[in-house]
C-alpha cells in the first residue's frame, strides 16, 4: 500500500466511524473499482477493499517498550518423562495445601527428576523446594540469568555473581563439607546484606553446627536485627552456650518460666525429681507461659533447675498436659543440643504410646535413622496414624512393604476403606497421601492393589500420589 492509499484509507476510516459517504476521500485506483455502481454499492465495495488493505498491508505496531525475560535456566536433573506428567498433575491437584504440594515435588526430586516448568514452578520466595530448583527460584525473583557457571565454588570474590537462592544452596553444601569456610563467607559478606537475607544466611549455620561457630554466633548478639539475635541465641543454645544470664528476678524470663513449672518427686524407694506444668489460674497466664517457651532456651531452663538438658527432659512428665508438652517439644527442637534432641527422641520412642508423638516436633533435627524408627513405630501401633501427616522434614520414598505389613496398619486401613464413616474415610485419604510420599515404588504399587481390593475406587484421587510414586522408578 503506497502513501496516498494509506492517507486515503485513514480519512475514509474516520468518515465511516462518524458515519457518511467516503467515496470522495478514496484513492483514485479504489474509486475506479467502485465507480460505476449506485452509492450504497460503491461504499460497500470500498469497504471490502479497505478491509483487505487493513488485513494484509498493515501489521500491529510493536510497542517500543517490549521486555524479554531472561531465559529460564535448565536444571541439573532430567525432566519428568512426558507420560508421567498427567500423574504428577493429578497428585499435585489432590494435595490440599502448600505442604502437601511441596511433598509431591520433593518425591519427584528424590527419584532424580525435575518437573516441567509449565506444570510447576517454585515461587520467588520459596526456600523449601529441593535445592535443584534454586536457579528457577532466582529466575522467578526476576534476576537476569545465571552469571556464575554451575559447579563454580562460592567465594567472597564471586559472591555477587550468585543469586540469593543459588547462594543459599551453595552455602548449605559448603556448610556440610567445609563449615569453617562457609562461616567465614557468611561473616565477611553477610554483614552487608539486609536483615531478612542475613537471617536466612545465619539459619544455614545449623548445617554442621559446631563449637568453632561459637565466637561468630556470640558476635551476633550485637546485631541490628532482633530476629538475627534471637536465632543466634538459639544456635548457641544448641551448642550448650547459655544466653545472657538473667538476674533471677521477676523480670528474668527464665525465672518467670521456671515459676510456671512444678518440681516434684516420684518413686518410693529411689526418689526421682520430676518436672510438670504448674496448674495456672487464668488463660492469660497460659498464654504468657507459651510465649516464654517460644523464646527461652532449653539449656538455660535446665540450668535454672540445676540439671543437664537430658536430665530435665528425662524428668519432664510427658502426658500431664498435651499443650505444654508440645511447647516443650518445640523448645527442644529449636534450642536443644543434638544430644538432648536424640535423648528425648530415644526415650519417648522406647516408651511408645502417645508421648512418642511429641517426637514428631523434633523430626527436622533427627537423623534419618531415628526418623524412620519413629515412623515405623507409629505405623506399628496404628492408634495415631493421622499424626504421621504432621511429620516435617522426613525423607521421601523409603518405606518398604514389610514396614506396612509389620503390625496392624493394613488391617486397620482395610477396615476403614470398607466402612461407611465419612470422617474416617477423610482420614484414610490423608494417610494414603502421606504413604504416597514415604513409600518405595514397589510398596506404593502393592498398597494400591491392597486398598482397591478392600473396596476403594481404583481411580480415587487420594491414590494419586501413590500412583505417581509407583510409576517413578528412577531415570
Amino acid at each position, binding site marked *: 500500500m503506497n502513501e496516498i492509499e494509506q492517507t486515503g484509507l485513514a480519512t475514509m*476510516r474516520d468518515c*465511516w*466511524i*462518524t*458515519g*457518511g459517504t*467516503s467515496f470522495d476521500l478514496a484513492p483514485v485506483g479504489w474509486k475506479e473499482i467502485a465507480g460505476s455502481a449506485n452509492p*450504497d*454499492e460503491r*461504499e*460497500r*465495495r470500498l*469497504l*471490502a*477493499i*479497505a*478491509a*483487505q488493505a*487493513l*488485513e*494484509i498491508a498493515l*501489521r*500491529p505496531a*510493536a*510497542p517500543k*517498550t*517490549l*521486555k*524479554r*525475560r*531472561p*531465559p*529460564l535456566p*535448565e536444571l541439573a536433573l532430567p*525432566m519428568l518423562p*512426558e507420560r508421567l506428567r*498427567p*500423574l504428577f498433575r*493429578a497428585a499435585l491437584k489432590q494435595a490440599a495445601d502448600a505442604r502437601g504440594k511441596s511433598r509431591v515435588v520433593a518425591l519427584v526430586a528424590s527419584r532424580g527428576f525435575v518437573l*516441567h*516448568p*509449565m506444570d510447576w*514452578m517454585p515461587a520467588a520466595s520459596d526456600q523449601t523446594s529441593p535445592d535443584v530448583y534454586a536457579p528457577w527460584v532466582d*529466575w522467578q525473583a526476576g534476576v537476569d540469568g545465571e552469571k556464575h557457571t554451575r559447579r563454580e565454588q562460592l567465594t567472597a570474590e564471586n559472591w555477587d555473581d550468585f543469586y540469593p537462592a543459588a547462594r543459599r544452596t551453595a552455602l548449605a553444601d559448603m556448610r556440610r563439607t567445609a563449615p569453617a569456610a562457609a562461616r567465614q563467607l557468611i561473616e565477611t559478606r553477610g554483614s552487608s546484606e539486609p536483615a531478612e537475607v542475613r537471617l536466612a544466611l545465619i539459619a544455614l549455620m545449623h548445617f554442621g553446627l559446631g563449637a568453632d561457630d561459637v565466637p561468630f554466633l556470640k558476635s551476633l548478639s550485637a546485631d541490628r536485627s532482633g530476629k538475627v539475635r534471637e536465632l543466634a541465641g538459639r544456635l548457641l543454645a544448641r551448642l550448650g552456650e547459655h544466653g545472657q544470664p538473667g538476674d533471677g528476678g521477676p523480670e528474668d524470663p527464665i525465672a518467670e518460666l521456671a515459676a510456671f513449672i512444678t518440681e516434684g518427686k516420684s518413686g518410693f524407694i529411689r526418689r526421682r525429681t520430676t518436672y510438670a506444668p504448674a496448674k495456672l489460674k487464668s488463660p492469660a497466664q497460659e498464654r504468657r507461659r507459651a510465649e516464654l517457651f517460644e523464646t527461652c532456651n532449653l539449656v538455660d531452663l535446665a540450668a535454672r533447675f540445676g540439671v543437664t538438658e537430658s536430665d530435665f527432659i528425662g524428668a519432664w512428665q510427658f502426658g500431664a498436659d498435651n499443650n505444654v508438652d508440645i511447647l516443650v517439644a518445640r523448645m527442644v527442637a529449636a534450642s536443644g543440643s543434638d544430644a538432648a534432641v536424640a535423648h528425648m527422641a530415644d526415650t519417648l520412642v522406647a516408651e511408645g504410646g502417645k508421648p512418642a508423638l511429641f517426637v514428631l516436633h523434633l523430626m527436622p533435627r533427627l537423623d534419618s535413622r531415628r526418623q524412620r524408627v519413629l515412623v515405623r513405630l507409629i505405623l506399628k501401633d496404628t492408634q495415631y496414624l493421622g499424626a504421621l501427616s504432621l511429620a516435617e522434614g522426613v525423607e521421601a520414598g523409603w518405606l518398604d512393604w514389610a514396614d506396612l505389613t509389620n503390625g496392624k496398619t493394613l488391617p486397620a486401613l482395610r477396615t476403614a476403606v470398607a466402612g461407611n464413616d465419612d470422617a474416617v474415610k477423610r482420614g484414610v485419604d490423608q494417610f494414603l497421601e502421606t504413604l504416597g510420599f514415604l513409600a518405595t515404588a514397589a510398596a506404593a504399587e502393592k498398597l494400591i492393589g491392597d486398598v*482397591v481390593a478392600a*473396596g*476403594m*475406587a*481404583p*481411580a*480415587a*484421587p487420594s491414590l494419586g500420589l501413590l500412583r505417581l510414586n509407583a510409576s517413578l522408578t528412577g531415570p
Partner: protein
Amino acid sequence: MKTIEALAPDQASLSSASKLTKQSNWPRLEKNEQLALIWGECQGSGSNPYRVVVDTGDHGYKCTCPSRKFPCKHTLALMWIAATAPASFTAAGSTPEWVNDWLGRRRKITSQPAAPALGAGGKSIGEAARDDENAAVEDAAAIERREAAQRKRAEDTRSSVSAALDELDQWISDQLRLGLAGFVDNSSDRCRRIAARLVDMKATALAGRIDEIPSRLMGLRSEERPDAAIRELGKLVLLAKAWRSTPDDAELRRLVSTSESREQVLANPEAIQVESVWEVLGEKIETRRDGLVSHSTWLLDLKSAAPQFALLLDYFPASAGRRSNAFTPGDRFDARLVFYPARQPLRALVVERKGDVSSGQWPDFGFDAVDPLAAHVAHQDTAPWLTDSPVMLPPGAILLDDRGDAWWQSADDPHGIALPIADTVSPTLLGLDLAATAALWSGSRLHLLAAQSGFGRLDLS
C-alpha cells in the same frame, strides 16, 4: 487417563466419576475386544441400573441416565475402570441387545476404507445390498418425483439465501451511514437482529458468524474496534459477492447456509484425502450465541515439509451435546483425513485412524519468510472472506509491553514485527525460547495453540 481427563466436561464430573469406580456400583461389567467395546450396568439412584457402553476405539459412548452432561459420570467411571482395573471386565462373546441397538444407530468412524458412496445418501455397498433385499423396487417416476422435489427445495433455498444477502448488504450500508462508532457500541443488538433475519432466510452459517462479531470486537482494545469492524463487515461484503457469483460452490455454501453431511464430503470426488501422521495441537471449545457449543480440534501434519493444518469441527447444543471424538493436545496418531473442499482446505474429518504414534519434535519447517504472517496473507489472496488462519511462527519468544500485555516476536527480528496475543500467558512462558509456535491469527490477535521449546512441547491452547 489423559483421554478421560480430556473427555470430562468439568472437574466435578471427574470427581463424581471417581466415586463410581467401586466394583460394588457395577453389577455388570463386560467387554468384547474384537469390537473394541466395553459396557456395564451402573446402579444409580433409580430403580433400574443405568446402561453404559463405550467404544474404546473412538471413545463414542451412550448412557441411559438423564444427566445433561456429556459424557456423564457413569461413562467416565466405566472408562476409568477400564484404564485402571481392566481385569474387572468379563469377556463376552456376544453383545447385549441394547448395545446392538446403539451400534446400529450410531455413525461410527469405521476402520474399513470408505466404500464408494451412492449419491448424497452415501450408503455403503453392504447396506445397499441389504436394502435391496427388502425394499420394494421404486419405479422411475417416483425417483423422478423425488429428484424434482429436491431440485425445487435447493432452488427455494438459493433464492431465499439470495434475498438474505440483499438484506445483509442493505444492513451493512446502514451501519456505514449511521457510523461505525455506534455500531461498535451497539454491535450486540444490531448483529442479533440481522442474524435472526438471516436464520429465517436460511443463511444459517452466516448468521452464526455475524452473531460472533460482537465478542470478537470486545476482545480488542477500544481504539482497535473500528478497524476490526471495517474488516469484519468488509469480509461479509466479499463473501456475499462470491456466493452470488457461484452459489453452488461447496465452500461458499458452507460459509453462508449449511455444511455438507459427513457422507456428502466422503462422496465428493473433489474432497482431498491425506494419509499422514497428525499431532493434536490444541482445541478450542466455545459456547456461541446461537446456543451451540463449537469444539475445534487443530491438527498438524507431521509428514508435510511446509506447515499443513487440519481442523476437526464439531457443533453440539450446549444443553444436550456430545462430543463424537476426544483428543488430548499432544496426541499423535496415524490417520487418513478427508478435507472439506475449499480454496484453502482446512476443515476435515477422520476417515480412518490407524493407531497412536510416540511423541517427538515437529518437522524442521525451514522458516525463510521474512513475514511470519505470510501464510495468512496467502490464504487471504485465495479466500479473502476468511477470518482466522492457523500459522506456524518461526523461532521467537513472548515479551510483555508496559501494560503487561503479551506479544510474540521473532528471534531473528527483535525490532521488527510483533504480534499481540489474545489471552494472558503463563509467566513461565516468558522465559522460554520458542523454536516454533503454532497459533491462530485472527487478523488482530494470536491465539496460541502449542509450541516447541528447549523444554519440549508446550501445550498452550
